[in-house]
């Protein structure tokens, strides 16, 4: 009986996300942004060579996420492990953005400022995915597979089931069998030894199926790649529909990625 009263005393601990924004989601560093673009949306990009020693910008990053493409500084969130070195060394160019909503439909969508993609390409991917997952909008069953994570990703995925995130309230369930699964959530950089089991799981899933790469390691290989034992991201093994960067991605980032995949975000035109 003690359990019941203790639970009642605490009231409702569950987040209202995504119906309402949650205060916790943006309370710590979620991703890195390149300043300039942020200060003036659509405005002047930071151009290499202006003020400071920008030739060293790319060398700041341990995973090569910072690029000096076409004399414009870009940052690939899909490679970023959020170590914060660039923010500490060059606060005039880089800053942390607190929002946990970092998922994207393709790798180009993870570049900041804007990627090389065009709007039409994103719309095409969005429409294609939407037509595939039309039947999953009320409920989606997830099968998780670890393909070489560092262990922290599993904690964040499992956290989605605690009463604070409580994803069952949104019709999201984790399933033991790939036969029941609609969405394959993969963590880790893709070890050679897991390629076989991962493909077997994917093939055992019924159509329609979605693949979500959870974490920077699953997106690009992160810091552990390159290595003789790794593929450097899940997209070299399976067709990935949604990328959720983060090292590890926080539960809110994962939830956002899942909702994005099945078109359940509020205001989603597919509803």
């Amino acid at each position, binding site marked *: 009986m*003690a*359990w019941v009263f*203790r*639970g009642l005393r605490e009231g409702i*601990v569950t987040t209202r996300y995504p119906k309402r924004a949650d205060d*916790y989601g943006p*309370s*710590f*560093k979620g991703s890195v942004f390149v300043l300039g673009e942020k200060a003036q949306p659509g405005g002047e990009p930071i151009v290499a060579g202006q003020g400071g020693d920008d030739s060293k910008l790319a060398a700041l990053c*341990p995973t090569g996420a910072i690029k000096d493409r076409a004399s414009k500084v870009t940052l690939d969130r899909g490679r970023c*492990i*959020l*170590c*914060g*070195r660039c923010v500490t060394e060059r606060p005039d160019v880089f800053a942390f953005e607190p929002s946990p909503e970092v998922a994207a439909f393709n790798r180009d969508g993870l570049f900041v400022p804007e990627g090389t993609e065009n709007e039409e390409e994103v719309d095409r991917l969005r429409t294609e995915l939407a037509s595939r997952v039309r039947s999953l909008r009320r409920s989606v069953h997830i099968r*998780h*597979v*670890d*393909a*070489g*994570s*560092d*262990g*922290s*990703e*599993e*904690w*964040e*995925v*499992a*956290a989605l*089931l*605690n*009463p*604070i995130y409580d994803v069952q309230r949104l019709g999201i369930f*984790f399933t*033991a*069998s*790939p036969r029941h699964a609609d969405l394959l959530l993969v963590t*880790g*950089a893709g*070890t*050679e*030894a*897991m390629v076989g*089991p*991962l493909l*077997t*799981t994917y093939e055992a899933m019924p159509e329609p199926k979605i693949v979500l790469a959870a974490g920077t390691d699953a997106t690009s290989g*992160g*810091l*552990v790649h*390159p*290595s*003789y*034992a*790794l593929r450097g991201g899940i997209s070299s093994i399976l067709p990935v529909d949604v990328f959720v960067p983060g*090292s*590890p991605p*926080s539960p809110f980032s994962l939830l956002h990625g899942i909702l994005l995949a099945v078109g359940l975000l509020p205001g989603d035109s597919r509803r």
Partner: protein
Amino acid sequence: MSDRPVLSSVEAEDLAGLVAARVSSGERFGGLFASARSDGTTVLRALLARHGARELFEARLSPKTNSYPALTPLLPAASWYEREIHDLFGIEPVGHPRLDALVLALGPDETWRPRPGAGQAARDVHPEIDDSALLSHVAGQGLFTIPYGPVRSGIFESVEYLVETFGEDIPHVQCRVQYKHRGIEGRFGELGLDDGLLLAERVEGTAAVAHALAYCQALESLSTLEVPRSALLARVLHAELERVACHLDSIARHCEGAGQSVAYARMTVHKERVQRLRAQLCGHRFGRGVVVPGGVCGPPRVAPAEVLRAISDLERAIGDDVRSLMGTPSFLDRLRRTGVITPATAAAHGALGPVGRGSGLAADVRSERPYGAYGMLGFEPAEPSSAGDALARQQVRLDEITSAFHIARQALDELGEGYEDALWRVALPPVDGLGFGCVEAPQGELVYLVETRAGRLERVKQRSASFHNLALFPDAFGGDILTDFTFIEASFGLSLAGVSG
């Protein structure tokens, strides 16, 4: 910080006899590590511990030698270490009774080996992985194997357990951990000292603070610089909160396995709150980026008084739930006499952390070799239990949660005065040599051997307690049945990422 182990050079032929003699005289075997050199030689190092003292036996194998007399026949605890060395270096321990692949199952025609330390770039090599040669069948009247994994039911790290059974009893289990092998130790050899820290935090992500701490201690052991007192206290605070989170995870898994849904929900809420407190303190839910060589990145971001209040709230809430849980017979019945590791088995293997302390071994790096601020905080180790079952391991974790809060509170009190203006970090000049770092991670003793040259990492060997303890896993199945599996696994509380490397 010149807290380094004694180094003794021996001949490879004598290594097995010497180490076995030391272990039979009461010393604890801490591991066997190899390190390749660019000239083709390989160095074998055996770690021995007696109370606080550490000793490394070092044997050199010339480029032409690719074998040495195995330790395993005299010292079964060395078995997994020798299998790992065989996988990664191609060096054969002669006389090893069962030299299956452990972390890297290569095809029969594959001659390439990663040989971490040799300075070879392992990024473009893609050896043929083939685990078909691994032993997968057993012989015996009515005996068969159930392969469980690597994709298991639930949100787990990948591992395959080959359960050898008659149908209900489990006489033996084989652990196949190669699925998560990422070649971490080869990757370390390509990095500088700063990037090495980031990789150390990703070896075993759930114990990132402990790994960063052991890595930094290894670098600091090469220098004569003193880490500032306030930084040592902050390290203790972050490390103890990590311990609480890991132990709550293990306890929540027990509750889940026993079908205690309410207790499971409550424990996961507590764990989430600990993770949120950690993120408030340092900006990362797993404490990454906090510990840096020479100190910490900065002061805790929340005032000590506020942290103390948060800790008190957590402690009270967890305490209430633990009292209810430990008074629930249907829960205790699943743990009592499940997965027994006898004190004799634990001692022979040198079991680490809560697994050792649940089987009568008091070894705890924080008390037997106080590092950082533990010496000044008057840390009292938890009383070991000799029952050796899952319940004993769970009780050890519960006691450690209490003591972790106590230590964290002490560290905050000590930090209290002048905490704003304190010095948090000293610059650590790169020094060449062999550094040694050793901390008590939530899973048990964690060891880092770091060899540096000209500001780069030449070889980093990490020995997570998960690696050492998982080798003991099959011994926990004396008379247990299939439904006990969940509890035995949860009570070990290990991370596979730290095992496979």
